[in-house]
């Protein structure tokens, strides 16, 4: 390293400890101007600590933080912005009932634009506000109308506004910005991901980018160089063109990927368990017919608005449908209510884990027993001791960590929370149908494998599984069959035992 000044950012032997634990241990990272650097690691590897350090939320205990050749010590979040660092956080921070322009103005604190947007009496200068917002959006190549209410924007467009906000603040410093994207694609559909990937290429023209993601393929596509963090250390630095996904997975988790071929395909299937005829809900899905057999994992793929989410919820009774019929294990269900669905041994895993899947505040064992009572606890009296003992076995079986039945579920990592939410359904002795809405969404690769394993085990035990897959790879890797939906109707069906469709083929049915 001869000329230090050529790097936008350089971390030299940075260490950060919390109590006696090293969250970051002698980390060395550099980011060159107009470079996209990928940062990957499992939950708890130190990614978020690193990002918080760069954003000025935490301070390192030792080591140096060099920005554009200058040693810096950040003390407050505003220091990061003043040094040209913009962060797009994993969870969206826009205020949804305000317009795009207002949101961008709120994010312009500290810039001259903040003052120009409001007059001395504190009243908005709307024309100026909208003009500023348009400039900020055009800068990142977006043509969103600044007067739109954020609520009416698609998820991708909101992400664009977040990026515009971060760029606007970072560029105020006068230097080429360093943008940090924290898992920006975690909940995007495949073609939306493409839009974001194009955006990253564009941001590369403006400055440097640190791209944090769980999706290894994506990181490989967008980054020039990749750092792998594990247990607070950088365990690998690779050029994207010299590395394959498998190697990244190994570096990241410290073990080899268990995922080999799709085991589901070889499985012998049982009788028809879920059978749906002509199900219709006006404006959402129409004339949908399909059936799933015992032991079958039927993966549903489709873009936003394909109607598969509403279909899944209708089958569980969480949303209505207008006409059509379906039957569970031969018993017809004309209308469905949640409690009746559960009594007929149907399970539903919502895509929004935090708001719909788990009850934060209740313990792991209470969450596990919310839907189905533990043996011998069918009555009104609940004995925590008995419940704990029964749940210990389940927690061990599903490898939930920490293995404590009394801990608040909110304390667990995302992957472990998802295991508990799934476990709530899978512990029912005779579960017949499991409707899983994006079960692997937002999980790190290691957790993804364990959850996929749980799903495979349930299928092997004879459960019929309707899997709303996050990605086409997920559908191909876990399903026996794939159903493609578009605009509320089924456009393609594939039996993977007969033939494995090409990705392009599936995408064709979706758009």
């Amino acid at each position: 390293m001869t000329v230090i000044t050529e790097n936008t950012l350089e971390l030299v032997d940075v260490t950060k400890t919390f109590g006696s634990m090293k969250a970051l241990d002698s980390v060395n990272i550099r980011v060159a101007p107009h470079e996209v650097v990928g940062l990957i690691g499992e939950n708890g590897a130190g990614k978020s600590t690193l990002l918080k350090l760069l954003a000025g939320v935490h301070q390192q205990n030792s080591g140096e933080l060099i920005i554009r050749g200058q040693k810096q010590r950040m003390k407050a979040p505003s220091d990061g912005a003043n040094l040209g660092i913009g962060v797009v956080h994993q969870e969206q921070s826009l205020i949804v009932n305000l317009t795009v322009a207002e949101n961008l103005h709120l994010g312009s604190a500290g810039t001259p634009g903040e003052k120009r947007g409001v007059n001395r009496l504190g009243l908005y200068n709307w024309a100026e506000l909208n003009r500023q917002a348009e400039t900020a959006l055009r800068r990142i190549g977006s043509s969103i109308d600044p007067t739109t209410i954020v609520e009416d924007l698609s998820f991708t467009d909101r992400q664009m506004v977040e990026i515009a906000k971060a760029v606007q603040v970072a560029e105020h410093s006068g230097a080429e910005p360093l943008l940090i994207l924290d898992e920006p694609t975690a909940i995007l559909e495949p073609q939306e991901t493409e839009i974001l990937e194009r955006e990253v290429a564009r941001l590369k023209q403006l400055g440097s980018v640190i791209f944090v993601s769980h999706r290894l393929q994506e990181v490989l596509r967008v980054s020039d160089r990749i750092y792998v963090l594990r247990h607070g250390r950088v365990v690998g630095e690779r050029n994207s063109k010299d590395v394959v996904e498998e190697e990244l997975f190994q570096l990241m988790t410290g073990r080899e990927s268990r995922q080999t071929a799709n085991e589901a395909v070889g499985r012998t299937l049982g009788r028809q368990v879920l059978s749906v005829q002509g199900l219709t809900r006006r404006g959402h899905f129409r004339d949908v017919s399909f059936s799933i057999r015992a032991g079958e994992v039927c993966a549903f793929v489709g873009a936003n608005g394909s109607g598969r989410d509403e279909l899944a919820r209708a089958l569980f009774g969480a949303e209505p449908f207008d006409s059509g019929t379906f039957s569970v294990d031969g018993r017809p269900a004309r209308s469905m209510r949640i409690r009746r669905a559960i009594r007929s041994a149907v399970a539903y895993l919502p895509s929004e884990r935090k708001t719909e899947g788990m009850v934060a505040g209740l313990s792991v064992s209470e969450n596990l027993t919310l839907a189905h009572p533990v043996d011998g606890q069918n009555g009104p009296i609940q004995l925590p001791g008995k419940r704990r003992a029964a749940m210990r076995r389940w927690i061990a079986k599903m490898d939930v960590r920490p293995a404590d039945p009394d801990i608040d579920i909110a304390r667990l990592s995302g992957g472990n929370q998802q295991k508990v939410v799934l476990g709530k359904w899978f512990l029912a002795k005779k579960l017949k149908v499991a409707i899983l809405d994006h079960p692997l969404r937002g999980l790190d690769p290691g957790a993804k494998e364990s959850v996929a394993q749980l799903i495979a085990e349930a299928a092997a035990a004879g459960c019929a599984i309707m899997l709303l897959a996050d990605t086409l790879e997920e559908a191909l890797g876990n399903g026996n069959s794939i159903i493609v939906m578009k605009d509320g109707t089924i456009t393609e069906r594939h039996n993977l035992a007969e033939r494995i469709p090409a990705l392009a083929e599936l995408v064709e049915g979706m758009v």
Partner: protein
Amino acid sequence: MSITTLNRQDKATRDLVTTGLRNFAPLALLVVMLLVVFVGQPSFFGGSGISILAGQAVPVLLLALGQTMVMIVGGIDLGSASLAVFSAIIVASTLQDLGYFAPLLVLLLGAVAGGVIGFLASHFQVPSFAITLGALGVWQALALLFSDATTVYVDQNSEAITWLVDWEVVGLPLSFVVACGVAVALWLVLKYTAIGRSVRATGFNEKATLLAGVSTVATKVFVFAVSGACAAFAGIALTAQQGTATASGLGIGLLLPGIAAAVAGGVAITGGIGNPINVIVGALIITLIPIGSSALDIDPKLQQIVYGAIVILAVAATMDRSPGRVIK
């Protein structure tokens, strides 16, 4: 062992300590308040001060216990105090004919009235704040109607309810001991029964609880029925204490003290969290403020300021203020 699990355990221990402190904060505040009264007016403890405090606390405590259940499910019951007044009038006017059945009938009526409110609130998805605000007016009007807007005196069969205030257990009125029994019973319900778990789960996250197949309608009917029965009990205790009942009587002013007692006892208005046993302490704190202020000769004009300050102090000491939590 990885970094995360260790950190998590550290955090768990730390949280355990702060939670423990929070649990005892109301009790500590009550002890401090009693000490202040003792220093200023030692005779308060020599005479019947404690017994009076306990007796006065009963209606507030009962209303607060009902409120606690409703608040844990994430709602609020603004109608409970006026239901207590209505119940006081019903029990006073039926004692003559029904004797010992009068209080039982009133308890049943209270539970049914509360249950209906709970059903309407959950089935038609009306916010409990709105529907109980309406109920407040209805109970008040019914109380006026049944009492002909005059004072109802208890003449015959008064012994069917006065045993609540006349009998004593270790120097405390029986009504207080029974109300504490109610608190313990509710604590057991929350901890050891399926319905109690549903109550807490609904308060933490109603949508997820619904999607797990728990009947949130039944859960809300249950908590409002408990609140109604507690309000009816409070009405009976009021009539037993005074020997009379009026539609404009004491009960009306008990709505806010009831809520304050629950909040001072550490019940979160955002739902999910609350311990009925701590609410006993909360009710004693709220009742001690006027009694203690009088014993200390504090200017009655200043009493409301003392009241406000202590409520804020109690809430500040008991609330969970982890960073990032949304406080409403």
